[in-house]
């Protein structure tokens, strides 16, 4: 193993464990993450295998296969982030609305008391 492999391997392991811990509520995403990270680690240790898989799939070079996989991974990550953002927006909206309504209720009650 070269120095790049020695540096990247622990990073990938830590990242996998981190993501695995964060995705407790989404088991199917956990499996996808595990597969992608596992594949990444295998290709990191045995780079020539990526070429063999690429040849098998008719892609050609191993590096092309990795680029395609990276693009797929990136697209998946974007979709997941988008969904998460929409969910957070909904929660924020509910919270802001609740707060705004509470404020006007208090204000109206105060005005009513002052008006007698």
């Amino acid at each position, binding site marked *: 193993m070269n120095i790049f492999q020695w540096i990247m391997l622990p990073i990938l392991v830590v990242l996998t464990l981190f993501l695995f811990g964060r995705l407790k509520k989404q088991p199917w995403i956990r499996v996808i993450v595990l597969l992608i990270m596992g594949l990444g680690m295998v290709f990191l240790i045995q780079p020539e295998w990526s070429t063999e898989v690429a040849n098998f799939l008719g892609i050609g070079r191993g590096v092309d296969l990795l680029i395609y996989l990276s693009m797929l991974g990136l697209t998946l990550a974007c979709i997941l982030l988008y969904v998460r953002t*929409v969910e957070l*927006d909904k929660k*924020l*909206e509910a919270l*802001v*609305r609740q707060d*705004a*309504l509470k404020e*006007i209720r208090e204000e*109206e009650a105060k005005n009513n008391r002052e008006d007698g």
Partner: protein
Amino acid sequence: MKKPKQNIWIIVPAFNEGRVLAGVLQSLQKSPYQILVVDDGSDDDSRKICHQVGVHCIRHKVNLGQGAALQTGMDFCQEIGAEMVVHFDADGQHRVEDIDRLLAQLQLGKGDVILGSRFLTKEDKREVPFQRRMLLQMARILQFLLTGLWLSDAHNGLRALNRKALCAIKLEQSGRAHATEILQQIKEKELSYAEVPVHITYSHYSTSKGTSIWDAFQVLEDLLVKRKRQT
């Protein structure tokens, strides 16, 4: 003696409309209805203007979008037992006189929701700039495909709802797509509706704040993605 205001509420969603808000609210105050501004996280002095003019004001601490502001206003109106509500834009493009026309149709039972349309009379139609007319025609077609309702106008912010519609409609679309979502809900919740001619004033200010072609793409994205998520 000052005549007491009716239990009909004009909901005015406003985001950074300080330049024109005072004028709009002063003209609305001539009507016998209650006025509720939903300040959607404005950075300007919109809230101060509301207090100076003396209208009810709800404030979102952060900007959420026009649809969210309208829903907050409707939640409040529902809570206090409003009989009818009117959605009225804060940018000065709507006429106060048109409110009575919308409410008259509601009171006559012509529909649970009365929608304003700028394409029902030749005079009103003539006022719409060419580019906007084209955009609105495309929006009408898209609106029909998404809701099944074939209307003469699209995304007209002036509309009136009776109590039944006020309680039934729950806007999920926080942005501009709420205008199409209202139609979807009219269809889904089997509410009746009618269109009434209204006049839109196209000032430089209101045109600059109106929906552009790029906003239209955003509306489309919201409708398709969020519609998909709801099903």
